[in-house]
């Protein structure tokens, strides 16, 4: 009985160790780690040790199964990437055409890869450009809230005023990377930066600014204009509600892989509501 228990325990133990071995081996594929701020980072880490082939052919069988799995994963991802590309193109068209960017909804979610492996014997190699496109799609770029100052919350009327110069900036993370990813055995370096911002002010006007704007602070002289990105409303939104201000962040993702490089542009949009009213001064 003791021997039976020992064998069961050893079998279970072997299963667990192999399970963890699998995890370690698959760690070569990039992981996506998300934090409480909902931002996600792609990491690609080398496994601590290569998997050990064993004598009874289990490794060979695993390779064969792994190859099939990799092919299936590649097919699934190619299909998902095609859908994502179509959605992204539609989204970009909408942003270009629409006066109200909020109507375009949120940027499409890049396809989720989990840890699906693209490497494996018998797989066709992919090009650097394809690897970069996949790596960029994996990269979950954050949308950036429109930064508008001075905040309406700072005055007693809780509104922005017609004619008052507002400062506009990117209120969030404007750089992701540089990071490395590995796709189909190709190493891809990515560096994403917000190259420009377009604000749809909600009153029919747009402001496009190079860079990420400059944040308004309480030390700014009252009435001073932003040196890089600003706007003054000419019409109030009140009493008919607020303007929906959309910030379209244009992420420029520079990739380098296998001696080649390029830039892939990915827009991300976020909105905020801004009540704008008129202040009248009585002069006696």
């Amino acid at each position: 009985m003791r021997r039976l228990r020992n064998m069961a325990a050893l079998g279970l133990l072997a299963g667990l160790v192999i399970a963890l071995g699998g995890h370690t081996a698959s760690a070569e594929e990039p992981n996506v780690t998300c934090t409480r701020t909902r931002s996600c980072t792609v990491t690609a880490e080398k496994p601590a040790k290569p998997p050990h082939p064993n004598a009874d052919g289990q490794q060979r069988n695993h390779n064969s199964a792994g190859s099939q799995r990799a092919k299936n994963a590649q097919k699934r991802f190619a299909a998902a990437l095609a859908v994502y590309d179509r959605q992204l193109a539609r989204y970009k068209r909408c942003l270009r055409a629409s006066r109200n960017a909020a109507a375009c909804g949120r940027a499409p979610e890049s396809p989720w890869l989990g840890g699906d492996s693209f490497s494996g014997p018998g797989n066709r190699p992919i090009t650097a450009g394809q690897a970069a496109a996949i790596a960029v799609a994996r990269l979950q770029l954050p949308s950036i809230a429109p930064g508008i100052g001075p905040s309406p919350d700072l005055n007693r009327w809780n509104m922005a005023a017609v004619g008052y110069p507002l400062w506009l900036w990117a209120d969030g993370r404007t750089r992701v990377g540089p990071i490395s990813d590995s796709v189909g055995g190709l190493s891809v370096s990515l560096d994403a930066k917000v190259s420009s911002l377009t604000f749809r002010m909600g009153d029919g006007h747009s402001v496009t600014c190079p860079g990420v704007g400059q944040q308004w602070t309480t030390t700014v002289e009252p009435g001073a204009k932003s040196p890089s990105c600003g706007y003054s409303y000419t019409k109030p939104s009140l009493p008919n509600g607020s303007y929906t201000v959309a910030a379209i962040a244009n992420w420029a993702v520079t990739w380098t892989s296998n001696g080649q490089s390029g830039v892939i542009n990915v827009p991300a949009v976020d909105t905020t509501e801004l009540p704008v009213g008129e202040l009248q001064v009585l002069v006696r």
Partner: protein
Amino acid sequence: MPLGGRGFVTVGAAVACCALAAACTPEPVPNSTPSTNPTATTPTESQIERQMRLDYEAAERAYRANMAEQDRLYKTGGTTKPTAALEATATGSYLRITLESLRDVRRLGWHSIGDAKIVGIVRDRGWKRGRVGLTSCENNEIVKFVDKSGRDVTPKGPALYVQALTVIRERGRWKVSTATTRKVKTFEGQPCGA
């Protein structure tokens, strides 16, 4: 979870099942075979089981302590340097990414309200000496971020995470080393779901 990992889990489980099946079909052992005492060189079953249990418990404690420290740091407006408690419970890419996020929060002048909730932890990702795998369901929906003026600046997006965690033993301390996040709409059907 990575597909490769699932495959290995399947193989691992199959090996375990085979061993269990073999255990149910005892083979006659000739008396003449020289007997070796496995306990002389390898730990006995109960020792291994005990070791696994202790490792898993320590790993879970490290993860929970790390989450509590993150709660504290996000609520107090982030940090630029890793605290002793953070370094005692995290390492590698997990520490780096956590710290990057805490720095962002500090730079933006935000702080959080509410604690992340660990809905459940399962020990389903393997064990070996000095390294265990856990899967945790983290509910971050309760965590809100506000800026200095008190405005809700909570980034949009799904906040229910299934985290595949690797916890390693480093200089005698268990530390969360990597996390692979899968965003889900509900924890229903997840192994770590309540």
